[in-house]
């Protein structure tokens, strides 16, 4: 089976400034891949490029097919992207926002399909926003908005999910629940690619990690092999303290 994403020699410039210099990576179904690196390393640009939102040179294959050759709705059914923040600021309910994800599954003349409502309900439940379904998106807290955007991405039915700092605005319980959900999705066969700032989250929840610095991939491999004291020092200029930080987990049965 082809990899979820197979990207080679990606070069991206933004406003004439080179941001990525020949990055190569693969993301596999059944795995969580974390992209790590200091601020300005090009992590978000890499994710946006994989989502088809940035012009690039090099190749990006999505399940074996060149990304650029996929029609918009077919691409949306294959890969979804959760940004750090959405510019959405309209009086739409959470259910309406999540239902937007079904556009790529529309029937003739853009009509909704019979299974749309079920898909929306499932996504609302999976991201734990079912209780907020009738609230206006703009009236939610940042963390609730993030969970709504994750529900929307799940509702596309895409097998590959790209998430830019998904735990950034979540409290610790919701962050842990989100990572547990992402792990479950990976076990069910999806490919999860996420940009992370917390190295401990990558160690706890990701299978593999890509280390990025100044637009160049410094290492790619299993998390425990890649996140070493030497790499952390080279990447962030700090020393890794083994077992130094307090750890958290959800209570048994949660």
């Amino acid at each position, binding site marked *: 089976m082809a990899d979820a994403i197979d990207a080679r020699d990606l070069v991206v410039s933004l406003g004439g400034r080179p941001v990525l210099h020949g990055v190569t990576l693969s993301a596999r179904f059944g795995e969580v891949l974390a992209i790590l690196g200091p601020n300005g390393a090009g992590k978000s640009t890499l994710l946006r490029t994989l989502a088809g939102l940035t012009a690039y040179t090099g190749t990006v294959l999505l399940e074996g097919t060149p990304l650029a050759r996929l029609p918009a709705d077919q691409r949306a059914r294959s890969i979804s*992207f959760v940004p750090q923040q959405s510019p959405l600021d309209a009086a739409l309910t959470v259910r309406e*926002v999540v239902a937007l994800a079904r556009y790529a599954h529309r029937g003739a003349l*853009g009509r909704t399909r019979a299974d749309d409502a079920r898909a929306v309900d499932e996504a609302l439940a999976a991201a734990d926003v079912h209780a907020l379904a009738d609230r206006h998106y703009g009236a939610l807290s940042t963390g609730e908005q993030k969970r709504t955007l994750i529900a929307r991405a799940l509702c596309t039915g895409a097998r590959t999910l790209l998430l830019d700092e998904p735990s950034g605005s979540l409290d610790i319980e919701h962050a842990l629940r989100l990572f547990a959900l992402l792990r479950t999705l990976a076990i069910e066969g999806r490919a999860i690619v996420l940009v992370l700032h917390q190295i401990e989250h990558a160690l706890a929840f990701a299978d593999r990690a890509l280390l990025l610095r100044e637009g160049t991939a410094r290492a790619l491999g299993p998390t425990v092999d890649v996140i070493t004291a030497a790499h952390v020092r080279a990447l962030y200029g700090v020393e890794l303290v083994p077992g130094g930080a307090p750890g958290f987990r959800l209570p048994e049965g949660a």
Partner: protein
Amino acid sequence: MRPSLWLLLLGLASLLVFALNLAAGASDLRDAALTSTLLGLRATRGLVAYLTGAALAVAGVLAQGLFRNPLASPDVLGTTAGASFAGKLSIVLLEASLADAAARGIAPELLLPLGCLVGALGSLLILLALARRARDTVVLLLSGFLLSSLFLSLGSLVTSLAQERWELGRAVIAFALGSVTGAGPRQVALIAPIALVGTLAALLWSRPLDLLLSGEDEARVLGLDVTRARRWLIAWTALLTAGAVAVGGNLGFVGLVVPHGLRRLVGASHRALVPAAALGGGAFVLACDVLARALPARTEVPLGVITGLIGAPLFLLLIYRSRRGVLHG
């Protein structure tokens, strides 16, 4: 309250205003000999006013979706002024080359709407080119204001040149002020298909418009062909604005205030907002036309003056009642 109930209320309000429209006027309906003629004239005029308002309000919804900005509307963005300028030019050209046009197989009555369409499209395309360079709301609105001023100045130039011939001058001024006085079956035949097809098209584009509320990047990720959507939304906005300007002239604030006010009632989802705007815009312009006829004045107050006099303060009220401030969308 559910959006469907608001739609029902707007439909009932439309019927009420239409009934008022039949009753309002200087002539007495009790004169049996004139009753059917008067009712026919008022119904036709009312229909044109209603459809013009519907077209402008739906064009406003499309423009606001296209530019992702609740302050966008055909008049704020200069689309109406572009259509109006080209419409005036068409009136002058029509006068100058009536025989030429007929000889080339162009029906003379189509010159004005075609001119308005070219003006509206041209204006929107210029603005879109400017907006792509600067996505900031203030820059967009200032660009629209400048474009509007430019087309209004060009329109004034045409008005002034047309004054050399008295009848032509009057025709151009009447068109500029905005009015449905004397509207007949020809105007109905022009605006009815444009308003109906344009509203249906806007309904078909309601899901893409909802997607665009999240910005072009997210809409693209969710499967929207943004380039194609933008092209069609421009075309429908231009057609609806052009049709409305061709039959009603320059009716300010309808495309801005109606969608803006109704969004608070029916929500931001375009599946409800588009039909609500069509019903609300129609009822608003028709009510203004009834008022124009009911006001005690020696000559009838132009419809465009009434929509502006009511629309501008209403819009200010909506802005100041907005808790978040309209500039932040």
